[in-house]
């Protein structure tokens, strides 16, 4: 090593000086090639014009104008874009609250109520079992359960709870949220569990010795110290739900709008510039939410 270092002495100095930059170079290149460049292309194409069979290089704002077409004029009625975003935001909020509560409780249980490490591992693996099948299958398997002639409805009718099938179980906002929570709760469990594992147990003992109740320990020690996990889990759930269109499509009977579906339809009709403009708006909206979340906690510092 020494010989090699001497013979490349001049370079080695640079390497030492910029080692951090060099180490991050491969990943930076990947990010640049597979994220920055495509993103720039999307932004560029969002200003192009198009007809039914080709896209035309240009610099126009029509695509953005189309997205917000009639939005001001039709107030207080919501235009398509506002209604779609509002619906997406509603799903994001409800899913976020439910997955957060479930995720936090599961992590809390795994971390503080299960005392043997082996048991923790076994139970944690149990949580991941649903992930052995694909996303789509987990979602679709709700359909025979919730349908008009499905298992839930026929059971309720048989035991006399209801006289006629309950319609809102399937192809409704309820079924969409149910699927979201089912699909994404684990994304909340994992980072929160990870954060909780790092909490120094002596802190909890100290709190206990100082006479803090369980609730006080929870609110003043565990929750603040799990914050990075909560934020990371929240970012996962929020970004996935914002961009999702398959779950909303399948579970909502394709009657509930989503930004992803609008982009998807535009793509199949070769309206790439319009789809790009919608994608840009979606990215901006999602980034704004993430930005607000990171204001609440400085992830870089906490990690």
């Amino acid at each position, binding site marked *: 090593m020494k010989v090699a270092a001497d013979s490349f002495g001049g370079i080695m100095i640079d390497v030492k000086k910029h080692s951090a930059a060099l180490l991050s170079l491969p990943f930076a290149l990947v990010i640049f090639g597979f994220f920055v460049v495509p993103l720039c292309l999307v932004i560029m194409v969002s200003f192009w014009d198009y007809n*039914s*069979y*080709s896209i035309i290089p240009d610099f126009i704002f029509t695509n953005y104008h*189309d997205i917000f*077409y009639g939005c001001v004029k039709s107030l207080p009625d919501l235009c*398509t874009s506002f*209604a*779609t975003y509002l*619906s997406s935001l509603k799903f994001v909020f409800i899913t976020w609250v439910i997955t957060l509560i479930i995720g936090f409780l599961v992590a809390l249980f795994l971390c503080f109520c299960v005392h043997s490490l082996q048991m923790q591992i076994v139970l944690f693996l149990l949580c991941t079992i649903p992930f052995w099948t694909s996303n789509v299958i987990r979602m679709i398997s709700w*359909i*025979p359960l919730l*349908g*008009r*002639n499905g298992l839930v409805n026929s059971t309720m009718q048989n035991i006399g709870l209801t006289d006629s099938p309950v*319609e809102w179980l*399937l*192809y409704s906002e309820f079924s969409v949220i149910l699927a979201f929570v089912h699909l994404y709760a684990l994304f909340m469990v994992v980072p929160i569990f990870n954060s909780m594992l790092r909490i120094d147990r002596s802190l909890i003992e100290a709190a206990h010795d100082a006479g803090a109740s369980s609730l006080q320990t929870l609110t003043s020690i565990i929750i603040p110290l799990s914050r990075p996990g909560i934020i990371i889990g929240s970012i996962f759930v929020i970004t996935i739900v914002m961009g999702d269109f398959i779950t909303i*499509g399948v579970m909502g*009977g*394709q*009657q509930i*709008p989503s930004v992803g*579906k*609008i982009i998807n*339809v*535009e*793509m*199949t*009709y*070769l*309206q790439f510039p319009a789809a790009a403009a919608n994608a840009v708006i979606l990215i901006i909206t999602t980034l704004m939410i993430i930005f607000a979340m990171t204001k609440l906690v400085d992830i870089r510092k906490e990690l």
Partner: protein
Amino acid sequence: MTKLIDRRSLLKTAGASAALAGFGLSAPAVHSANEKVVRYLGTATTMGSEIDKKLFEDTGIKVKYIPVTTDEVTKRVLTQPNSFDIVDTEYFSLPKLVPSGNILGMDSKRIKEFDNISTTHTLGEIGGKKIGDQGTAPKKVFYLKDEKSSEFSPEPTRWATLIPTVFNADTLGIRPDLIKRPISTWAELLNPEFRGKASILNIPSIGIMDAAMVVESMGEYQYPDKGNMTRDEIDLTIKILIEAKKAGQFRALWSDFNESVNLMASGEVVIQSMWSPAITAVRTQGIPCIYQPLKEGYRAWAVGFALSAATKGYQADVCYEFINWYLSGFVGGYLNRQGYYSAVPSTAKQYMEPYEWDYWMLGKKATKDIKAPDGKKLAGAGEVRDGGSFVERMGGVACWNATMDENRYMVRKWNEFVAA
């Protein structure tokens, strides 16, 4: 259902060919001299392993599939014209495909059965009677001015845009056991009696046509051309759809074949837009389902083959051999037995039993059990095909699937309907 199995094996080939296509932007078009391979781009609903097997026996040609959805076919032709030899597409996509110059005119002189192609396509008539031509009717886009022209010719020329293969007349599918009364008009789709039990397909260009049939039959409006609406007409149509949706008329919207089958078979929906093989799929599960003829008529569609502009020389010869074989009768008989119509009825007839021909094409009572190509029973002796004979069904066509001039606006308004 062999159909599903076929699809599965297709998907495998799809993965392989997609990987291949991704590798060098396009798979090599030249194969060794004694290997005849055709790279097929299309929805593959009118292909299948039995057809592949027979094709190979008769001609030694192998098909390499690039199976995608209807809209994806168009996208692929426009964006990756070198990735396929032959494209199986709808006539209504032609106004988008032809201006791109990515497909060639088909030489009618090289097609043996060209003169026997159904008059529904060439003349827009059947049994001497004119049929509805609203929308992108095949006769409007049947010929090109020249092999490489990007303009349609109203007069017959040597160069055809597509060589037609299969077509059909679509209508609403119903569950007679759950509706329990006769259905005879498109307006029933929005009848409040079926609130929460109706569905319409969520493919804007086709869904809007079904909606237009409903609007006309409700007496709300008569369109000069349902297949080419003005902005006001689109607004009106979507407004009626939105009102129905807000009132809870639709249980769900569907966008792929299997979804429509599941909605119907599970009883979630009792009346909806549907495609002929989907009806067959519900019926072979033993569930009653009717492709209900309606008094306002049918919405028709037609598909055919074209060659990529990049397909030349020997490879083009193989493609023409494939197309000639496709029209020579085996496939025609096979597809007719699924409820489609072959573009060359005369050859298909040679591959069907007389009692099958009588049932499927002449609308006569079945004298024996009618079976799907996979051997499952579709109808018993004494039953008659929904809608009757070929001449009755195709004679009742009101409009064809279409690409509108206001397509861009229509898609935006359709999204509004989905979001409402």
